């Protein structure tokens, strides 16, 4: 269980996060949704430990992690641009962390992750030779091999297109279910958040606009911002499809 209480953060006197509180259970997927500059990436960095909070607390399980350094929190992240090491091939990237944590994962387990993410044909490829989807899967495998307690994904689908996007979406959901891994996703796309998550935290200008399950947000938008940002956007999309293809696709 991850619990944030009254988290606040300022940069150069400007408030970027104010009174952020939420709680998610083990194995749940939560999306941090908001427009650009709303503070969602800062919140992700705070949870990871890359940045310190000015106020509030971050608790995981029974442990208060607010002042615990990043390396000791046991969380891990897949960055938006994957941050794969181009001097190493796909396999060397996947097992990169094992040199520092010998015995953490057995070779059999590594192979299971590789099979699960269908990476076997690509293991000897250089990073530059992989497609966007393959890079995403290598980055996921590298992170999973480190056995994180919490998986953070920064805009995991933004660099992908069409069909690959859908396949990675399913993959992320399977990871959370299969490994009972609490997963936190940053996104600015309401559709991604609604279709992937158990819970959604909508942030606007550093404050919580609404927190709840996708059904609650669609059914009972808490305020004008949520109505405009999510519901209206989805209606426009639906209308566009209807205009183009008629009732059957809308």
């Amino acid at each position, binding site marked *: 269980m991850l619990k944030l209480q009254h988290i606040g953060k300022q940069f150069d006197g400007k408030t970027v996060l104010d009174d952020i509180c939420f709680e998610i259970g083990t194995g749940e997927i939560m999306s941090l949704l908001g427009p650009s500059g709303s503070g969602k990436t800062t919140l992700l960095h705070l949870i990871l430990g*890359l940045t310190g909070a000015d106020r509030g607390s971050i608790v995981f399980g029974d442990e208060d992690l607010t002042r615990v350094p*990043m*390396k000791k929190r046991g*969380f*891990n*992240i897949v*960055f938006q*641009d994957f*941050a794969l*090491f*181009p*001097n*190493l091939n796909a396999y060397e990237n996947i097992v*990169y*962390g094992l*040199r*520092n*944590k010998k015995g953490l994962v057995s070779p059999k387990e590594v192979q299971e992750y590789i099979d699960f993410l269908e990476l076997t044909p690509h293991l000897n490829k250089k990073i530059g030779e992989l497609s966007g989807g393959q890079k995403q899967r290598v980055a996921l495998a*590298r992170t999973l091999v*480190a056995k994180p307690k919490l998986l953070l994904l920064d805009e995991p689908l933004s660099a992908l297109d069409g069909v690959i996007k859908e396949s990675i979406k399913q993959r992320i959901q399977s990871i959370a279910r299969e490994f009972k891994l609490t997963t936190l996703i940053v996104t600015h796309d309401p559709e991604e958040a609604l279709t992937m998550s158990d819970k959604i935290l909508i942030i606007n200008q550093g404050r919580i606009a609404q927190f709840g399950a996708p059904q609650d947000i669609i059914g009972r938008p808490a305020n004008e911002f949520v109505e405009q940002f999510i519901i209206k956007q989805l209606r426009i999309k639906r209308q566009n499809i209807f205009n183009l293809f008629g009732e059957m696709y809308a």
Partner: protein
Amino acid sequence: MHKAKTEMRVVFALLLLLFAGFLFLPLLVLLIRSFETGEGFSLANYAAVWKGRDMVGAALNSVKVSAVSAVIATTLAFILAYAIHCTRIFRPIKGVLKTAILVPMLLPTITYGFAIMYSFGNQGLITKLIGRNLFEIYGFNGLLTGYVIYTLPPAFLLIHNAFGYVDKKFIIVSKLMGDGTARSFFHAVLRPLAGALGGAFVLAFILSFTDFGIPASVGGTYPVIAAQLYQVMLGSIPDFNQGAVIAVVMLIPAAFGIWLLRYLDKLNFHYDKIDAIELPKHRVRDAGLGILSSAIVVGILSVFAVMFVAPFMNGFPYDTAFTFKHFSDVFASGDLTGVYKNSLWVALLTSLLGTLAAYGAALLNVRTKLKAKGATDVVSMITNTVPGMVLGIAYLLLFNGSSLKGTFAILVLCNIVHLFTTPYLMAKNALSKMNPSWETTGELLGDSWFKTVYRVVLPNSASAIIEMFAYYFVNSMVTISGIIFLVSAQTSVVASKIKELQHFAKFNEIFVLSLLIFFTNLVIKAACDWMQRRRAVR
């Protein structure tokens, strides 16, 4: 970007110590000495230098000859860069022109002077081929020729690099809009390059103004500031305080020039997206510029032709019988081979330690959140501003009585600091293009900062490191301005030995040593280029 860690602070502190001790402190001592007199501190030294007609005349001569050289070098560099970027000259010829024009950079400037003497002197190779003296080589003309050869390659590199950021589509657009040749040339080529052309002029001017090697060989009775500085410091009656004044005076135009370079860079156009397009064929333009640019390169290289001929003759120009005697003499002479070995050691140590310092400074600047990391930019700006001779004198004044005097360490340190800017900028450029999340990812996977640098950042910047190493090595082999005040009989290097051999008119030895430097640099450059290409293919 990564949070500041103890190991980063340690590296930063070490670098600050290096530059505090071997850049800021020597410059401070130099400044103090320029005000020091027998009766305390005053402007008396400045007044004495100002009153002395020699020094003012030399300063004016320096400005005059440097300015004329800079105009010529910039014009020639522009013609070459234009021929490479804006014509349909046969591609391999462009490749040859691009490489050949950089050849003089592999030699010490003092050699240029002797090549000029042996090419254009009364009995010179080119004089003999043409059948008459082209000009009086000692004084203004010799300096002008030497400075143009010296400054043309860096001026070319600057304009050539700027041309890469100019969108050639605009030449076609301009023509399609009905512009004539002159108007199209002005708007689509000259105007976008205004900053680079100004920059090339300033760079050529500073390099000429602060060079010592060329005046040392062909200056003759035409006094320039660098030669005067050498005379005052190491002449029959050395005057260190007056030397300090001249060094400070030399620093002023150099500092102004660097400031101007930064300002001029803003005048350059930077197009958002540049398409590599090929311009249409134009027979007159292509043939004309092909011939002109080839003539420039052949002209420059022909000056050095004598260097490859004279040492193989019994006694050029009178006895032209072929011999290996001069080479075997040099190799048999323990003194000269020792000097060559010294040069190699100094260049090797400079390139290893210099690359380490420049890379470390760039790494801290680009990829950490250290609060004072901007200090490395300040250091780089200062090392770019301070001419080698000024730094050499500052070292001489500070370390004269210390155990560092007359050691290899002081030569290596002087070279590291003097040549710091370019490798530092190379590293910064490479490191800023890398993924900013690598260190965080490495740490999350259990690495220390050093470990991620070693396992990920270093291997991915190998190409830049090779380039930095080559830059430090080649320039350490050819530099003379900085180290001329610091070498001792035991630590003499090839460039300073050439100056010594000049007194005994041992020109064959000079050319043999110059060839040794040339081929050593050529081998290092070729090896580094090969390694870079191999990495690129992988």
